[in-house]
């Protein structure tokens, strides 16, 4: 009897231990999303995954955008690092790959990766190895407020060139409307102007050459000119009062509140302005308009070239295989269609754009499909040490403390110091 009892106990203990072992896999997922509606869907997807995969727990963690960027190097080298992290690809990703803090997931996503938009997947591929999966694409352009534009008798559809934009700003000012709102304290919203002008003036070839240090690098003609054109806009004082003290979410809310006619923003702001507006309602679809970044006379870039983000998720070193499995589940046609239907993303899974049900998101998807050159944000693609200088000098030009020539030279100096 005693022996039996002991055996029974041992068996029970074994079973219990086995159960504990199964329930032990926790996938830690660090994100920076501030739109509660989208986070809610993510939560639901995570819970659904847990339900169909007993023993796996998906733990969501959040950090604010700027804090996330600042803490990333430390987080990645910690033993307790999250398994899935947010990424804008580009130079930062290259640095992380070089440092060996990411998992190579090429073999784990074999077959599955064919379902993704090739350009988006390419952003997370280095030397033929895949280190992460894209989740969304975005385009930078001008969002506008139809009522305010009409008040100043400006036709947004008519803004095709840089001079058209300058003229529109003048008309808006004359009508006592704040032409443009920008979150200057965060600096990167200001770098959209400088970099998009560079994309229009020099096109892909100018950027690639500058990265290699040819034609004077970033001190070259293209980049001086983009500073000069940006300065033309600044001289008209187009931004809201105190724009250098506004953080980006504040600025997006300001636009949502209907206090400014335009904002140069990532296409996702179309949705985000609602969540960040003071009344949480923001501008309704019939009151919001969009036009692509204007072209520059004599510019080498094609009007269809786009600036924007390619965002996605990376798997950090030594993560459990469930992390990749969850990502594949998260970036599947079903979930992407659902997120697309909520107008949160331009999907990267082929066929999921069928979910897009709103004309604005369809327009952005079509723009991206037409684009032969999609430039990732400079502050991401140039890596933290050079990219942040691009942000700095954009803010300095806007604040009047640097000339366009000095700005271009400062970026080139940072590129040479490199990292």
């Amino acid at each position, binding site marked *: 009897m005693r022996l039996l009892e002991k055996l029974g106990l041992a068996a029970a203990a074994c079973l219990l231990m086995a159960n504990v072992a199964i329930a032990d896999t926790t996938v830690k997922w660090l994100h920076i999303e501030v739109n509660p509606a989208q986070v809610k869907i993510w939560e639901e997807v995570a819970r659904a995954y847990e339900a169909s995969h007993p023993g796996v727990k998906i733990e969501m963690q959040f950090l604010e955008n700027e804090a996330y960027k600042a803490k990333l190097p430390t987080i990645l080298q910690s033993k307790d690092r999250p398994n899935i992290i947010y990424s804008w690809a580009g130079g930062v990703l290259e*640095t992380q790959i070089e440092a060996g803090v990411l998992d190579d997931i090429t073999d784990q996503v074999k077959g599955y990766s064919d379902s993704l938009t090739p350009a988006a997947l390419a952003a997370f591929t280095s030397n033929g190895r895949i280190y992460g999966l894209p989740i969304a694409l975005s385009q930078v352009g001008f969002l506008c407020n139809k009522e305010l534009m009409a008040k100043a008798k400006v036709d947004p559809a008519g803004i095709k060139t840089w001079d058209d934009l300058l003229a529109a700003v003048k008309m808006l000012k004359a009508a006592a409307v704040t032409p443009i709102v920008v979150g200057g304290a965060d600096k990167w919203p200001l770098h959209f102007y400088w970099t998009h002008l560079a994309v229009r003036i020099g096109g892909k070839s100018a950027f690639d050459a500058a990265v290699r240090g040819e034609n004077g690098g970033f001190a070259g003609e293209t980049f001086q000119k983009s500073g000069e054109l940006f300065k033309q806009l600044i001289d008209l004082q187009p931004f809201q009062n105190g724009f*250098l*003290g506004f953080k980006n979410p504040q600025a997006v809310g300001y636009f949502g509140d209907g206090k400014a006619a335009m904002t140069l923003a990532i296409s996702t702001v179309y949705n985000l302005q609602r969540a960040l507006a003071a009344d949480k309602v923001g501008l309704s679809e019939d009151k919001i308009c969009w036009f692509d970044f204007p072209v520059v006379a004599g510019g080498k870039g094609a009007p269809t070239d786009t600036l924007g983000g390619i965002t996605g998720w990376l798997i950090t070193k030594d993560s459990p295989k469930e992390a990749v499995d969850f990502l594949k589940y998260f970036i599947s046609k079903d979930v992407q269609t659902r997120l697309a239907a909520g107008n949160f993303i331009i999907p990267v899974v082929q066929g999921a754009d069928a979910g897009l049900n709103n004309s604005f998101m369809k327009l952005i998807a079509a723009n991206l499909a037409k684009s032969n050159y999609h430039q990732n944000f400079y502050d991401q693609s140039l890596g*933290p040490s050079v990219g*942040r200088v691009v942000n700095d000098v954009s803010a300095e030009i806007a604040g009047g403390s640097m000339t366009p020539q000095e700005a271009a030279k400062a970026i080139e100096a940072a590129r040479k110091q*490199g990292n």
Partner: protein
Amino acid sequence: MARPVASVPAMGGAKTSFSPLALRGPSWDGRFTVLILFLPPALLLFTLFVVLPIGEAAWYSGFNWNGFGKPTNWIGFDNYRFVLETRAFWLALRNNGLIIAVSLAVQLPLALALALMLAERLRGAVALRMLFFMPYILAEIATGLIFSFVYDGDYGLVASIWHAFGAEPPHLLASTDTAMLAVLIVIVWKYFGFHMMLFIAALQSLDKSLIEAARIDGATRTQTLRHVVIPLLYPTIRLSVFFAIVGSLQLFDLVMPLTRGGPADSSNTMVSFLYNNGISRMRVGYGSAIGVILFAICVTFAFTYKRWFMRDE
């Protein structure tokens, strides 16, 4: 100075009579024991938390390193050259100088004046003391957030004052001309209470008979203040100045929530400059160089000050 001969004979006293050091008495042996017992822990902690980190920073400052893995790209003193070539560094240094100047020229006199008024045990003085001390209790980060609302050009207190006069309110924190001024005001507001408390404590422990003697000799209030009270306060004033300067050099947590060093680096301090470049940009070598420079400035100041002004304390 009397040597503490008599105070330590208990330690190892019996042994000393046989030791060759016996002639010198038990003091050497006793002190040696104390040294053996108490120095290592202190030395260990000091090495672990002060010497090693500084040594590490000095080592890293020779590398072009982004914080990932081990540093390999040795560039010698280039990081120091890069730092010294940066306009923002000199701006930050100037700002630290400004903070020190304002602390000494505005904050300490204000604290002293208030202390002189509030040191007496008058009705209401205690309440006022608490009121003035309150900002010091508040966490720096919270203070910064509160003032970023106060200064807000659309909804802030400052804006409503401007509106009351029918003028277009300024965005103090968003202009390169006013951001540093706005930060300085917060600094004075936050720390004068601390120095006031130091002065009050000193005033209350003064030897009253000296003041009474001056009165009896016919000195006026101003004369007593100038020739008796303030000279008696010198040790505390010297300490206050020391705290003010070291605190000014280290200022960081008020600046971040207010301006993050901006716009265009106009309100950076050395430490916020270090953070913005070393941490946010993942330029650990460069950031370490800034850290070493800052450390050198602080140490030079502390030792010089100790040597010249606080010799007897």
